[in-house]
């Protein structure tokens, strides 16, 4: 599958939500823990060899599950291949917890759910749709109910 690699590399250089050196282990059998600079930018997790400019790789953090494996370790697995886990070893328990929180909140889908919640709550409390003043009430990405526009409906 093609993707715009240059732009993604450029994205990896942008200010991050969180970045640290962690021990990272890939999902394949036989993969070992390696020290990596791990950087969270929007809904991507980039990982670099320490002191290298260009990332080795990127993980899109949608449709994934983040789990605490032990006090200092968390894992990321993607729903389409749930047994394959990427492991990350942190320095402290606290750091591990912070990474887990950040990654969970890093998905676009998670933000969308937040938005739907706030929009609904505000509407419930005030009777008004908070998005109306911005003229974006009808945008598909902000819709409250699960009856989103299906593929057939959109232009």
């Amino acid at each position, binding site marked *: *599958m*093609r*993707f*715009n690699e*240059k*732009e*993604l590399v*450029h*994205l990896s250089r*942008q200010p991050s*939500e969180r970045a640290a050196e962690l021990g990272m282990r890939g999902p394949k059998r036989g993969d070992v823990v390696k020290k990596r600079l791990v950087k969270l930018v*929007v*809904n991507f997790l980039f990982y670099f060899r320490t002191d290298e400019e*260009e990332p080795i790789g*990127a*993980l*899109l*953090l*949608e*449709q*994934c*599950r*983040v789990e*605490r494996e032990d006090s200092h370790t968390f894992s990321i697995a*993607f*729903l389409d*291949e749930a047994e394959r886990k990427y492991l990350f070893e942190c320095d402290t328990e606290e750091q591990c917890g912070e990474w*887990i*929180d950040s990654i*969970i*909140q890093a998905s*676009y*889908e*998670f*933000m*969308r*759910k*937040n*938005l*739907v*919640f*706030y929009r*609904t*709550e*505000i509407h*419930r*409390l005030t009777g008004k749709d908070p998005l109306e*003043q911005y*003229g*974006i009430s009808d*945008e*598909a*990405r*902000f819709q*409250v*109910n*699960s009856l*989103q526009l299906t593929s057939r409906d*959109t*232009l």
Partner: protein
Amino acid sequence: MKLNERSVAHYATCDSPPDKTGFLFKKGERNTAYHRRWFVLKGNMLFYFEERESREPIGVIVLEGCTVELCESSEEFAFAVKFDCAKARTYKMSAENQVGMESWVKALSRASFDYMRLVVKELEKQLEEIQEAGVCGMAVAGGTPCKSKSNRRNQVVRSRSGASSSSSSSSSSSLSSGAPPQYSQKNLQDEMQNNAGSSKENGVAWSKVPVTLANGYSEVASSSVPWDGSAGTGPWSVTGGGVDGVRPPPVPPRRRGASLESPVSPGTGCFSKLHDWYGREVEELRVEWLQNQPVN
């Protein structure tokens, strides 16, 4: 650079609802021919398939940090997705009609993660203010309005909307460079400071859900909750408006201090300003297109 391609492709075709789908013509990378492809927009990812029924996308365009513009082209209803990085490729596309073009341009220019984050923050702020006002209203007799920032903010928003709608009709400048208005970084930082400060000082007993999550969180990891919300694990699943007693989702921690990580796309931390900018962008595109129409 590696990417978790299999999982990304899965995201394209899984049952999370897309933000927009449709046919577009896309200019090939090397040759100049336009190919008709089926496009699926999900979040900040624009996937394209050979056919509507294809199981897997041919490719994906990560939209974070892009700008969308009308472009000069032999094709009608053409627009381009551009990036602000060296040697970036410009993705030229065209829609089948005017309505389709406008609709796609609007959808793509608001597809960034940062835009979504801004909207969420704005609503989060609004909800807080409503909650505060609710508590104040109970404590103060006679209905004297509670001192809050909301009035000032609302006024700012309204006057801005007014300004932008009156200027757009006379504006004929094309948005070719995509350079956003230069908002003073200092003002934005001040605003962030104020917000951070007020949330710290907020003595109102509004039960904020702690950000750290207990063990077993993986069970309710929102990324894995089916979209239709019927799974019930997400406390924020909406079923017919019955959200009473529902725990709000964990909120991203407020940044202390003023360091506003600059978003990749138009750099502004103020939602109403950013939103006006997007609105103006679309308006200008529309005006420009109308002006470029051949006289019949």
